[in-house]
């Protein structure tokens, strides 16, 4: 038994990565997208059956994997939950907190699983750091730094619409917000600044945030679309009461090539890419295995911090977050 077929809704950049991941896991995939060219591209690349909407998928698949633009996550995921499907939802869980709450309670009521694809937890260097911290290697985390910097998405992409994507904070910084919560605990205060307006909607392309965790730990986050003309990079540095962890994706290249572009042919230099590892863990949970390392509630909490950061950037004030920890 177990999951036979997964339906991926939204066949854009992350949708195609998920389709490839499901195929690596030996799961039959079908896809859906409203755009004919997206359907055609996925069918050609992966040989999968494609549909023009969710309805057709709901008739044939066991699990719905939501890879649509952020502002449509709630609608698509809720429809899937109501049809009794387990749901995997790309991050952010939804665009707003009421949507997240409605989705989580609907999944609980219907008795289906809901997983949020906060994939950074599945990147091996981030997972290794989390294990090192859990094992006590650096003591208690005190001051953390994260960066996530790339070029600007194409001018025609929905990411530029803050109302749809949450902008640089909602779409990019939320990765490190989730990870910071994972390793340093609940966030109680957020201060953020957005800057360098550019792109088709003249939105912010760079953001800083300072998170204060319930433990007192401080996280500094940089998220950027300003690194035009240079490779995407991420880094982290986690200092604790007994040590320090530091990593940057560009500090120790495992493969150097001339010309430099050849290195891309090497891929990620991992037996299994982080997206496939993530889907594998969700699949195992749906098939009765242990809960994955990230829950839907984690996805909601990361969204709450991201929205507080967006509010702080608007008002110029630090924003306090109500948490269960603080209330207890």
């Amino acid at each position, binding site marked *: 038994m177990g999951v036979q077929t997964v339906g991926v809704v939204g066949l854009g950049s992350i949708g195609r990565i998920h389709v490839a991941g499901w195929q690596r896991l030996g799961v039959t995939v079908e896809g859906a997208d409203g755009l004919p060219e997206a359907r055609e591209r996925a069918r050609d690349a992966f040989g999968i059956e494609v549909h023009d909407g969710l309805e057709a998928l709901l008739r044939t698949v066991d699990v719905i994997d939501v890879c649509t633009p952020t502002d449509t996550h709630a609608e698509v995921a809720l429809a899937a939950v109501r049809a009794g499907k387990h749901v995997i939802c790309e991050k952010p869980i939804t665009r707003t907190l009421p949507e997240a709450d409605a989705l989580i309670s609907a999944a609980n009521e219907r008795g289906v699983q809901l997983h949020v694809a906060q994939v950074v937890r599945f990147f091996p260097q981030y997972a290794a750091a989390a294990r090192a911290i859990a094992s006590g290697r650096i003591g208690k985390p005190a001051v953390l730094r994260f960066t996530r910097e790339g070029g600007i998405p194409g001018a025609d992409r929905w990411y530029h619409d803050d109302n749809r994507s949450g902008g640089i904070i909602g779409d990019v910084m939320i990765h490190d917000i989730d990870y910071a919560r994972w390793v340093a605990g609940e966030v109680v*205060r957020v201060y953020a600044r957005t*800057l360098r307006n*550019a792109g088709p909607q003249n939105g912010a392309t760079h953001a800083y945030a300072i998170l204060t965790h319930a433990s*007192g730990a*401080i996280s500094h986050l940089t998220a950027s679309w300003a690194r035009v003309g*240079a490779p995407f990079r991420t880094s982290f540095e986690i*200092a604790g009461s*007994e040590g320090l962890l530091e990593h940057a994706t560009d500090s120790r290249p495992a493969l150097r090539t001339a010309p430099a572009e050849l290195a891309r042919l090497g891929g990620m230099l991992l037996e299994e890419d982080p997206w496939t590892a993530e889907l594998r863990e969700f699949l195992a949970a749906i098939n009765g295995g242990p809960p994955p390392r990230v829950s839907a509630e984690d996805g909601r909490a990361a969204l709450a911090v991201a929205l507080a950061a967006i509010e702080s950037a608007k008002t110029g004030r630090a924003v306090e977050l109500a948490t269960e920890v603080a209330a207890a």
Partner: protein
Amino acid sequence: MSTQRKLKIGIMSFAHLHGAGYAGLLANWPDVELRVADDDPERGKRIADRFGVTCAPSYAELLAWKPDGVIVCSENSRHRELTEQAAAAGAHVLSEKPLATSLADGRAMIEACEAAGVRLMTAFPMRFSQPVIAAVRIAQEGKLGTIHGIAATNPGTMPGSWFVDPELAGGGAVMDHTVHVADVMRWLLGSEAVEVYAQTNRILYPDLPVETAGTLAVTFANGTVATIDCSWSRPNSYPTWGGVTLELVGDEGVISVDAFAQVLASYSDGPGRTGGQDVRWLPWGDDPNAGMLREFLSAIREDRAPVPSGWDGYRATEIALAAYRSVEAGQPVPISTE
């Protein structure tokens, strides 16, 4: 140059570790005659002997020697009294950073030097770091366009000693490590800070009476947002003392500069491989302290104001002090402009 008379330079106190470093440089410069004094006479004698220079028995006797300039390397809270003594004796002053532990003391130092007709310089060696100079030059040539954001770090190992005494140091990591990069930002942007948000904690060394980690966000009058990590977050096992980095984000590009990346990695198993295992980064770049001391000497010879000045030290200290106010308030606080 060889016909120049030697400049008489004094070092007052070796409480700050940088003092011994300055002595090591100046003792070998042919155009300098160096004498030192320390209120810890044993420490003063030990360091003077190491570099073969004279240790005066008191500050008064050092100043009676009529030095052209003195370098004040005392505990932070004592910069004012030593600067006032030096100025009264007619010596130009290079003060270790932070300039002072209160704005009143900083202003008093500036006024004392003005009244005595001597120059006051603040020890900000990052103005003389070749990688930093390169980044600032590229930015000031306009290659980045408008600079919207700066993320800077100045982490270090926990210095211990009087650096963790709230009275003598004026605070902890924020007082120790905010001002270097704050000064670079002011220099780079040509703009003053108007607002500061900061968070601090004591998790790294919970038994100390001062904050040991901190992160600031500073808004400049021109609109640039800059963050500073001033934490004592480098463990003793780290291969070097710490570092200084800045990432400048402009309309046209991004520059990341690491002032202390010019190092080679060294791994030593000790003599006969019998322990004392040591992993170190050995610096090979130009020593920013040497450039800073040359500026102090040149300004004295050329009878001009040194850069960075006492006011530069004052403005950077303002940012650090505002950080403490923000921590109290839990919100950003303004820096009142005069």
